[in-house]
């Protein structure tokens, strides 16, 4: 009733209050944009359903709840109506279900990944209580499954080049975590025992949030990282600087974290 109007109103004002998709309000990645589009599509469908059902509800309550005390209509139902209101939603639902398969396949099915990016992951991200450990291959090399002596390490600080799909290898050392880039609409749990390739593409240079979105213990809330999206050249330079800072005295620090 009143609540339903308020609900619709809330949706209308929400974006302007910042109660909407995380800043900047649209997705920074093409895939995320598709997710947003889907969201709006479903919002439209469910919005119409919601308003329809509630308008009907309010109208019925107003019309038949008038307290005139007329005897109710003696009917046990209508076969036609049942069929109609089974088929119509079924069609809509089936449409929703099939329409979005494609986005899902692009997001998750490995054979749809960019082959180049999949073959050369930019980094291995290992989650642990309560930090993200990041291992880059040395500049010009390919990331190996097992740590190499010239690998580069950082903590909570993931850098990635913009404008092209990149892949990270996601692992966990202890419990479940979840690799969540809200501005890019990317989320993937880090599962102990599995090495999961995650791809994303960030089109905007900047510093974005890396959130742990799966309860991983008391420090879950502070497991905060950062994604620095930079142009390819800068990214390469970043790796080189990193290498310099980690190996500058000529004595390799085999396993140091920063």
């Amino acid at each position, binding site marked *: 009733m009143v609540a339903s109007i308020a609900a619709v109103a809330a949706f209308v004002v929400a974006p302007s209050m910042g109660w909407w998709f995380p800043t900047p309000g649209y997705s920074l990645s093409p895939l995320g944009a598709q997710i947003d589009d889907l969201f709006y599509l479903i919002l439209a469908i469910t919005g119409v359903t919601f308003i329809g059902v509630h308008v009907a509800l309010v109208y019925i309550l107003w019309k038949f709840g008038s307290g005139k005390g007329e005897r109710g209509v003696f009917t046990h139902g209508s076969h036609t109506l049942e069929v109609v209101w089974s088929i119509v939603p079924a069609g809509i639902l089936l449409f929703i279900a099939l329409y979005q398969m494609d986005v899902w396949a692009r997001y998750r099915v*490995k054979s749809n990944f960019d082959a180049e990016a999949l073959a050369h992951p930019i980094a291995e991200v290992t989650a642990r209580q309560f930090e993200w450990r990041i291992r880059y291959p040395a500049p010009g090399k390919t990331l190996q*499954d097992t740590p190499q002596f010239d690998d580069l390490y950082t903590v909570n600080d993931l850098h990635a080049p913009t404008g092209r799909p990149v892949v990270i290898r996601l*692992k966990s050392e202890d419990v479940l975590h979840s690799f969540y880039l809200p501005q890019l609409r990317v989320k993937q749990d880090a599962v102990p*025992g*599995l*090495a*999961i*390739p995650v791809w994303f593409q960030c089109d905007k240079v900047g510093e974005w949030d890396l959130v742990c979105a799966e309860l991983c213990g008391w420090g879950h809330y502070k497991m905060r990282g950062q994604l620095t999206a930079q142009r390819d050249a800068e990214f390469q330079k970043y790796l080189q600087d990193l290498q310099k800072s980690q190996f500058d005295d000529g004595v390799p620090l085999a396993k140091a974290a920063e």
Partner: protein
Amino acid sequence: MSEHNAHAPAADHAHEQNHPHVNYWMIFGILCVLTVISWLADEIGNKGLVLAIVVLAVATAKALFVMMYFMHLKFEGPWKYVLLAPTMVLALAIPAALMPDIGSHYYDFEAPQITEDVASHDGDTHDGKHPAEPAVKH
């Protein structure tokens, strides 16, 4: 369910209860033979899938005999289907649904049992496990 008709006259009794006369010892014999078959299937040296299929088929056959005769399902009304069919479907569905995730792996599975295997498996064969003394007591 033709056997159902055979008992229809008995239904008049106050203390009816399906009271079939089964030769339990014959069923027992069949079950024993089946057990021996699955044991033999192993003994002959079958391996892997063939063995699994044979022994599980035998087990299913045994289970059917026990349910039909010992548990008298053969003589019960159609409620048995209503009760058992969903259970069976679910019982098969769980392993089937777990298979793509647990029984096989879409992503790289990095258990130490596998990774260490790669590192240590040069020329070390399994049959050379007990060179000094054969496994005695098991």
